[in-house]
């Protein structure tokens, strides 16, 4: 199972990324998951922010992206990006579109919209 060179399992010492978060681990709250949508707010940005936070805000200022996309574009692990977003959101620099609540995941209308969308696009 865990053969060396398996491209799906890269063993990396993540020292540098967790320096970015001042050594903090992942926030436990569910504010950000992989598909939480994020963009910047109108709040002006102070100059003293960490460079990585500036980079997040640069990326997010272009429009709406999911947390996963932010991580992908920034080439940072999801956990790191969640910490950065959590901080930036707490300071009012981000607008966050809340994820679909669990009860709504089995909502008939959401599934119907997904189906309609797939059929309209690829049918």
């Amino acid at each position, binding site marked *: 199972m865990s053969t060396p060179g398996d491209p799906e399992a890269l063993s990396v010492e993540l020292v540098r990324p967790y320096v970015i978060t001042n050594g903090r681990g992942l926030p436990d709250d569910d504010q950000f998951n992989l*598909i939480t949508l994020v963009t910047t707010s109108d709040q002006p940005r102070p100059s003293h922010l960490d460079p990585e936070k500036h980079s997040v805000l640069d990326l997010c200022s272009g429009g709406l992206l999911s947390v996963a996309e932010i991580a992908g574009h920034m080439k940072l692990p999801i956990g790191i990006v969640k910490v950065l977003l959590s901080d930036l959101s707490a300071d009012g620099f981000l607008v966050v579109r809340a994820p679909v609540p669990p009860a709504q995941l089995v909502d008939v209308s959401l599934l119907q919209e997904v189906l309609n969308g797939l059929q309209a696009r690829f049918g």
Partner: protein
Amino acid sequence: MGSRPDSADGVYLDDAVQIAAKILVVGHFAVGKTTFIGTMSEIPPLRTEERMTQAGAHVDDLGGVRGKSTTTVAMDFGRITLSSKLVLYLFGTPGQERFVQVWEDMTRGALGALILVDPERLKESFPVIDLVEQYGLPYAISVNHFDETPVRPENELREALDLLPETPIVTCDARDQKSSADALIALVRYLQTRTDRRA
């Protein structure tokens, strides 16, 4: 840091998008998850990493990689805007049990899973199906069909994979968009029947 995409064209979602949904595309190594996502995605597929620590009950499963302090798992994902307010994300998730921490994050909030199966390597799909069931995620089976592989009868596959009678089995060519879309549509239709029953 050069974190801005080279071209902003098509990178960002429409401002009107309100809802993001998620479907997992799972399967064993090299079954075609990345191809499927690349075929369906409106953006060039992106890759994210999740960090795994060795703390926890599943450390024993790590076998050969024991002694390393952290492991990261790479996942490919793509995006399909389905309407002015709805976007669907497809996450390609490796099916090994040692990635259990990733699975907790991935399955949370997912509508369901499409399990890609190689008819010539059915056994390799067993642990994947076990994991999806363990997390209670509804799923459909998509037999990734290549030109040279013979088509196996559905009842044979159903028996070999020990599927419930209602679990959909579709055939798809992950390189073909229409074929891949049909597999997703079969999954969503199945999810609808489950919702109907629950109501």
